[in-house]
């Protein structure tokens, strides 16, 4: 059976969670992988919690369900930690990647009792410094693919430059690479 990785991206409306799952999936397609990536559509508004998903496998697969038990959760907005059960459904021993600029110990303590690999990167700071705006969606993908190795960074930067032409794309690539280096 195909080795499938289910990724859930938790963000807030307007932060680009949907774009993030799409570009992650496009990068995987570029590598010849198989994907099913989609947003969770509901009555979303700017600022309200939203989720999007990417199901990725090197082999063809048939599943067409929503993602209830992700292997990986990416948290784009640190304020979600107190508002939303971001680890809901996370598989035992799964991975959490959080946009977080505090101490790692504090973050680990937040997830006390959760059996998971916890990573953080200061996504908002990186996005603000490198892109000029606090839009850390693609930044978080840089951190994700460092720790989960779903796609090569070259594939991610390629689809990013394809989606965002010119300076914006280049700035995002710089930010992705920085997150890739700085995730801990």
């Amino acid at each position, binding site marked *: 059976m195909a080795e499938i990785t289910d990724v859930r991206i938790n963000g807030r409306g307007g932060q680009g969670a949907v774009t993030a799952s799409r570009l992650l999936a496009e990068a995987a*397609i570029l590598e010849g992988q198989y994907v099913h990536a*989609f947003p969770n*559509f509901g009555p979303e508004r700017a600022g309200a919690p939203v989720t999007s998903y990417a199901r990725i496998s090197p082999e063809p697969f*048939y*599943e067409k369900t*929503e993602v209830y038990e992700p292997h990986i959760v990416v948290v784009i907005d640190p304020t979600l930690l107190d508002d939303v059960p971001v680890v809901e459904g996370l598989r035992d021993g799964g991975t959490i990647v959080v946009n977080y600029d505090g101490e790692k110990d504090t973050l680990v303590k937040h997830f006390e009792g959760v059996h998971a690999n916890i990573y953080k990167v200061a996504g908002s700071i990186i996005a603000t410094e490198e892109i000029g705006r606090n839009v850390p969606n693609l930044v978080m993908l840089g951190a994700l693919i460092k720790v989960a190795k779903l796609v090569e960074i070259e594939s991610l930067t390629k689809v990013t430059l394809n989606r965002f032409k010119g300076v914006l794309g280049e700035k995002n690539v710089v930010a992705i690479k920085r997150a890739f280096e700085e995730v801990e």
Partner: protein
Amino acid sequence: MSGVRQVVGMTGDEAVAHAVKLVNPDVVAAYPITPQTIIVERYSDFVNNGEVDTSFISVESEHSAMSACVGASLTGARVFTATASAGLALMYEILYVASGMRCPIVLAVANRAFSAPINIHGECTDQLVCRDASWVSLFGESAQEAYDETILSFKIAEHPDVMLPAMFGIEGFIVTHALERVETLSKQQVEDFIPASRIVRDRFCPDENKTFGSLVLQDYYMEIKRQQEEAMQNAFKVTKDAMQEFSELSGRKMEIIEKYQLEDADYAFVSYGATAGNAKAVVNRLRAKGEKVGALKIRLFRPFPSLDIFQALSGIKAATILDRSATFGSPGSIVQTDIASALYGKEDVPSLHGYINGLGGRVLTLPEIEEVYEMSKEYNNIGMTSTTDWVGYRK
């Protein structure tokens, strides 16, 4: 580009829009409705950018959209539109006009639940209830099948032995808005598959005196309806041949029903659309546990492939029919009753267990599908030959 097979990431809606672009129909008349909107939105971009030379007619409702399609089609134009749920219901009256006037319009349906309560998510009832409207009707499981069926539908509808409209459905969001890999075709491949313009025997044009859509009462109405039935029967062979030709063209096997691990199976799932993907995933899980089970996917719903389904299910003990549609007070779920009719009186056929599930975007998870599989086996073991249950809801 010609002949080069490319892989592109596209949602189901985008796949339809891009496939229509290759076909480049003369007229698209449409009204937006979620989860179809992206199809006509993208297509209007193509029109605006001059990438196609389609006349795009914006209308004020789906009733008008289908009416405009009928008018355009009668002039000999190649016509496309798309809708969903309430939009399809609003078209319903004109669906019969389109088929009765033998307009080979192609309609993409982003299958969505009916109101009330209002809901925008996936469910196939909207398309299934158009079963008697004399439209060829197909379902797709993925963005790839959406892409392929878009192109295929023109071929079937416009065939001189058919000349009926065709609709194909993909489920809202889980297919329409989900990104998947799609192998695209070149413009040349599509032009080789369908003629550059429709073959028109008779058409409405300003310099000839003709009447279309005249009053026909007891004298000839029934003969005209009978011709539609004969055209629908012809659509079997035409669809099979077109799928065969498309398979050769694309390198992707396409059949009116898809058989997955059925050869040695004792039990089978029967489904259509996205659910068929989940059924195959469950077959893999059950096979790993030693269960002799397979899956049958129905791609062509009208004309209903009775004989093919009978042959595919012959020798199976029990069939679990996963029907993502609602019907009330019926002797079975919608597709189940068709299958029951197809198998009635025949020997060596399975017991039929219909499960109404997945309404309004509700997901019947893979473990739940395994549970209903066990239910079917149990029903079969105690000698029940026909059951219908609602599953996957709070009791």
